[in-house]
């Protein structure tokens, strides 16, 4: 089942590759079917998924490279399954957003589907080599997606993204190798989870640092975050969505899955620094966002800030914090995805994202403004919307251990509110800027991509039972070990 989810997009990609590039509709249809199969399959899995079990489910295991004891092994638990759902869902949403792509359609959808396979694989791989393959598999399509369909500085952004991430991940790779030998030639993640905690602290710390470097770039944790604003700004809208919604989650997922579960010693050692980084991410990210005039860049920095909440939750070493981190990952994916889509909407019309170029848009585009308000408020953590739940639980988890850090981080919440409010004021409120007299409200396609996200935002904010129930047991068990 997991295999189906992972490979369906790749199969779709290959089909797309075989289609002639003039048949745009066919290409789009195939892409939707491929991504749709993944989505449906992951939803169908919901029925079989046992939320009361902390164990790996849907485990698949086939020998892949027996000589090296590398296996094709997949599995999902309460930590990864929500992220799988998020990925399949956001990919379909981003595909809807991609319908506006007119340049080199075939290649676009090809790379997009390859990217989806990579992302899904990262979350369900239970073998380090498999994991690493998927991890890197996300890089190449991303490079092309940013590089070909991006903004004016796309080439630079693409290569910077690639090199930055690769630099981190090669260290992670070395860490994996070190664990392989330490663990008696195994890349099996579950097995290493048993072995890892028994290793001597020094080794754990070293390997932790190696893994952390790779993950931190992806998260992105300060000070390795500078690739993010550029990549986000330059990427085409759907790709920004994917980047924010899924790619960043890979880092936090890795932190929870590997760093914590395999190397608790190293994790414990790193906690004081981790929480510091979290605080920097939160406060500094929010302040940087405050200084932005480009909406997309602002949202990008807000991602830095939001991932800081995840880190804070993780640093709390408590179930509430971990739950908060995972939940925050999901909700950040939804909310920031929607934000990028919405920024894309205005950019498509006005060809500028400069905050001060607008004014009073709410008059002309009430639906757009309403959705934007909803999403912004969700992002700044208004209770009743999804953003609050994760954020609050992160704080809740971190607070018993890191009171002062949490208190300082609250400044970040205020700054977040400040920049979102200012953006809304300058763009949507105030006197109408006559320059945009001809601007139109959202089209059906745009609504189709944003409204589901908005619905989820409200749903998860008001009644987060369902997503939480998926992860509760796993996280309690994770910490209970």
């Amino acid at each position, binding site marked *: 089942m997991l295999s189906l989810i992972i490979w369906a997009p790749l199969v779709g990609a290959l089909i797309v590759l075989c289609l002639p590039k003039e048949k745009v509709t066919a290409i789009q249809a195939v892409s939707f079917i491929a991504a749709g199969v993944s989505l449906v399959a992951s939803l169908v899995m919901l029925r079989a998924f046992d939320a009361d079990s902390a164990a790996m489910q849907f485990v698949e295991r086939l020998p892949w490279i027996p000589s090296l004891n590398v296996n094709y092994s997949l599995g999902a638990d309460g930590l990864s399954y929500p992220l799988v759902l998020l990925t399949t869902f956001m990919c379909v949403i981003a595909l809807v957003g991609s319908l506006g792509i007119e340049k080199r359609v075939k290649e676009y959808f090809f790379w997009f589907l390859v990217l989806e396979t990579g992302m899904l694989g990262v979350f369900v791989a239970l073998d380090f080599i498999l994991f690493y393959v998927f991890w890197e598999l996300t890089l190449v399509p991303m490079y092309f997606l940013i590089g070909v369909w991006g903004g004016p500085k796309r080439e*630079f952004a693409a290569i910077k993204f690639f090199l930055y991430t690769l630099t981190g991940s090669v260290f992670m790779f070395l860490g994996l190798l070190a664990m392989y030998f330490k663990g008696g030639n195994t890349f099996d993640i579950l097995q290493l989870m048993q072995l890892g905690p028994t290793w001597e602290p020094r080794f754990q710390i070293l390997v932790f640092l190696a893994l952390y470097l790779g993950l931190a770039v992806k998260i992105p944790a300060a000070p390795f975050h500078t690739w993010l604003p550029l990549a986000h700004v330059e990427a085409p809208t759907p790709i920004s969505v994917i980047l924010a919604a899924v790619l960043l989650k890979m880092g936090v997922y890795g932190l929870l899955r590997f760093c914590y579960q395999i190397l608790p010693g190293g994790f414990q050692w790193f906690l004081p620094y981790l929480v510091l980084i979290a605080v920097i991410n939160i406060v500094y990210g929010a302040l*940087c966002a405050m200084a932005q005039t480009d909406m997309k860049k602002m949202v990008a920095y807000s991602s830095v800030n939001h991932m800081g909440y995840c880190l804070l939750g993780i640093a709390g*070493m408590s*179930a*509430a914090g971990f739950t908060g981190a995972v939940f925050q990952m999901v909700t950040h994916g939804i909310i920031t995805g929607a934000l990028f889509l919405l920024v894309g909407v205005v950019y498509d019309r006005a060809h500028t994202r400069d905050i001060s170029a607008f004014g009073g848009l709410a008059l002309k585009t009430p639906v757009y403004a309403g959705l934007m308000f909803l999403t912004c408020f969700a992002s700044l953590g208004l209770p009743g919307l999804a953003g609050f739940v994760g954020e609050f639980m992160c704080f809740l*988890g971190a607070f018993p251990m890191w009171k002062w850090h949490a208190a300082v981080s609250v400044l970040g919440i205020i700054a977040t509110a400040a920049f979102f409010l200012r953006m809304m004021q300058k763009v949507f*409120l*105030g006197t109408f800027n006559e320059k945009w007299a001809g601007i139109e409200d959202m089209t059906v396609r745009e609504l189709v991509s944003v409204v589901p996200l908005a619905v989820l935002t409200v749903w998860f904010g008001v009644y987060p039972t369902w997503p939480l129930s998926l992860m*509760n047991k796993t*996280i309690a068990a994770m910490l209970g070990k």
Partner: protein
Amino acid sequence: MLEHAYLIPLIPFAASLIMFFGAKEDPHSPAPWIGVGAMLISLGLSVSVLLAFLGGAATYERNWHWFSFATTMGGKHFVHDMPIGVLIDGGAALVSVVVCFVSSLVQIYSIAYMHDDKRYKRYFCFVSFFTAAMLGLVLSSNLLVTFACWELMGLTSYLLIGFWFEREGPCEAQKKAFMTTKLGDSGLYLALLFLYSLAGSFQISQLGQFFSMGYAPAAVAAVIALGILVGAAGKSAQFPLFIWLPDAMQGPTPGSALIHAATMVAAGIYVVARLYFVFLAAPDVMALAAWVGCITAFMAAAMALVSYDIKGVLAFSTISQLGFMMCALGAGGYTAALFHLTTHAFFKALLFLGAGCVIHAVHTNDMREMGGLWTKLPVTFWTMLAACCAIAGLPLFSGSYSKDMILAYVWEFSKPMFWVMLGTALMTAFYMFRLIFLTFTGKDRDHEKFHHAHEAPGLMTVPLVLLVIPTIVSGLALNGVIFKLAPKPVLHFQTAAAHEVPADAHAAPAPAPAEAHAEAPAAQHHGDEHHQEGHLPPFLHYLLWVLVPASIAFSFFLYRGPKYPVADALKSALAPAFTLLERRWYMDDLFNVLVRVSDRVAALCFWVDANVVDRVFVDGWGLVMRVFAHLSDLFDALFVDRTVDGFGGLTNDVGVGLRSFVKDGQVQEYLMYAAIAFSLAATLILTR
């Protein structure tokens, strides 16, 4: 009816949803009546609940499962259930009735007031939503829900202040309001975190027990109380966060009446009262709260003295009255605060709605352009006069009961504070009647506006009249039952301790003045003394009866005519003081400085990000290599076609450095390096 109490917030919530999704934007839309109807149902429910409590019902709590999440407590990891539900005591019932009542009337009033607005439906939607949130806050048994409602009220406040967003003023104001309250909310946020990490629950009843049993260390309780106080200061516009409220008046007037006068701003007071057990465990913070309230009341009243904006005066008076409530809470007057909250809601709503009628009539906020309107707007005049009497504390009007009760607590708490509060009360009487005199009496100052003024339609005046009733009688009606309805909570461990060690260091309010020292603990400890509390010594009563009319008279003396030479003379004589007040104690400027500083910090952060953090990792090694290359006399090589655009220093400069070894393509240079390798091998190996 208690078991259906949960419907009280849900009905308006449903109404707002129905209006939002179901109704079209249309001046003749029946949508507002949905809101009004919902409100009336809620009102009925809450009245029945109140009646139950008046009949002696016990505190009622009912919870449902909301969501559960994994959590860690005391080293154990388990799945924690988060319930959602209602917790109703007398105070909650009382406040919910107030909210429903005021909201119903405001909505009825608004039907006429907002009739010509193009976002007619949206307005009612917001108001219903606000009411739902407020009722949720009042009734919720779960502090997290309380907080959520608290924030949602902030949202509706934001939306309503900026309701006319085409103009820049409301937009600035709404942002300011949201940000300032958010600043305060962060305190409440931290308090919540602290409470949970301490007690492992958000259930107010459980938290109450926890504190009541004395499980909370005093220092922790103090920190939590401080956090709550900060939150309340933001929401209830206490010093120093009151700056947002005057600006918030740029929204529709009925909205202001409901949100920024009668109910939402009282939420801070209400939450402090709801979590009073925390404050009881932290006497220091209580004293602080009292002083904060006192300072707020005084500063706001002073500002009201010089304002000519009719809504501005009301806004300052709101702040001032909220200061009274906060002061009462700090001084131990739990019941008094709730009492004043109730009466204030009625008369302040009335005042605002009345002001709305005035503005409706003359299309200006400036009282200097009004005058003599009582002939044109008789209903408005008489109702507002009643409200002014109430707020000024004239005997028999509701305000006098609650205000006297507060003053009584303050008298017991601290004498200096009492005199400040007394002065503030007199100032209140002065500026409120100043408003009446400037607006309604004397001759018209702006003939044009006067001429066009006319009484508001019935939909607007009926609510005024309806509000007059509680404005007058609620004080008298509640005075007898309020102590039974909302008795001050008691901490069991302190009462227990009081029997053994009367001067328990734990409970002693250190910063309180000396004379309060002996009395305050006693006041806290003995619930049966409540009936003796809340009454001023008789001589002070007489003093009030003399001074209040005197200040009204003084006001009349100053502002009776179309011109007010004495006031102007005073103004020129006390110019610095007037300027200080007109500039709102320079608090706005302080706020602007804060904003500017934070903008600067943000810009600095971003500069650092783009020019330091980014470059350290991208170009840092490049710098090192450049130095290295310079030392190796390869500097010229650095200027050889730097083809690599952006990415970096590291790769770029190292590459240039390395390439310069062979940049000429001379084969004998190649040989040279081979020979060097040879000679190094020969020498190093053989001469070891």
